[in-house]
């Protein structure tokens, strides 16, 4: 879609960071971002689900959402953005904009409130796009086995489950690398088989 293909313009790629409220998304993004991950002043006013519904006054909703995002300049031509999904369910209408064109998603979970990750898991499992489940280590939380978490959540073998510490840069890096492996794996699988059907379905 390049209006004017200017080689000096970098292009953006995006990874979505999702999970329940207070699970550590902002911390996770902040651990690797070059910019402050959340500026409470930096709110985006979003007009409801579909702009088409503007015609019907009863369908209107104006909501101000603080967008949680971080930036990592990978090289002179690629910039990686990490976007956090708003924790509250009432902002879920924004999710479609957030996930559109994303490389993949990290779903963060807290073993003390594992059920909080259900809405995010349901959403991303259904989309059949690459994602990994990252279990954030919280002080005071019981030790856990990632396979137990997988079993508890009924996740298939294809979804990587990794332990992480959202405060730690190298730990976040490893989660993102695991996601990229998943992204590349899916890309290759789509090329060899099943990809045709998926491409047609788009």
């Amino acid at each position: 879609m390049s209006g004017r293909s200017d080689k000096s313009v970098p292009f953006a790629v995006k990874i979505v960071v999702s999970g329940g409220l207070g699970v550590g998304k902002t911390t996770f993004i902040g651990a690797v971002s070059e910019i402050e991950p959340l500026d409470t002043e930096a709110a985006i006013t979003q007009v409801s689900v579909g702009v088409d519904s503007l015609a019907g006054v009863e369908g209107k909703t104006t909501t101000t959402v603080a967008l949680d995002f971080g930036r990592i300049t990978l090289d002179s031509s690629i910039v990686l953005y990490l976007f956090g999904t708003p924790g509250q369910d009432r902002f879920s209408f924004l999710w479609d904009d957030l996930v559109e064109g994303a490389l993949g998603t990290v779903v963060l979970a807290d073993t003390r409130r594992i059920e909080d990750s259900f809405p995010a898991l349901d959403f991303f499992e259904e989309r059949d796009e690459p994602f990994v489940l990252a279990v954030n280590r919280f002080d005071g939380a019981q030790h856990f086995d990632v396979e137990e978490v997988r079993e508890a959540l009924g996740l298939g073998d294809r979804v990587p489950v990794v332990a992480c510490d959202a405060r730690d840069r190298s730990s976040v890096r490893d989660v993102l690398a695991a996601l990229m492996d998943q992204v590349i794996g899916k890309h290759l699988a789509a090329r060899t088989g099943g990809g045709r059907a998926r491409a047609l379905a788009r």
Partner: protein
Amino acid sequence: MSEDSAEDALFVRPFIMTGGRSEPVQAGLRLETLVVAVEEAHVRGPGLEFERQRIVALCAEPKTVAEVADGIGVPLGVAKVLIADLMVGGLLASRQPTELPLHVLERIRDHVRAL
């Protein structure tokens, strides 16, 4: 439905900037799409309407669509319409591949591993 609430005022105004249009003339703009003013934009910028002028000024350095919306204080949908107009008008440039080839994905992974 009260007609004079602040919410109503906010609700109507933004799309006046787009002449009531809600669909961008160019599809494919995403939250993270980077847009930048072309070199000659500062010459033509002053002739533009207020919001468009501000976008061009804001995009002296590459900015994401999300940052533009935030920067000029309009809803995302409005920002997309205005940005698309400016792209078609040749004032903003953008590079947003729809599908990334394998070697680019691998490059991204290698960069991420090196973080």
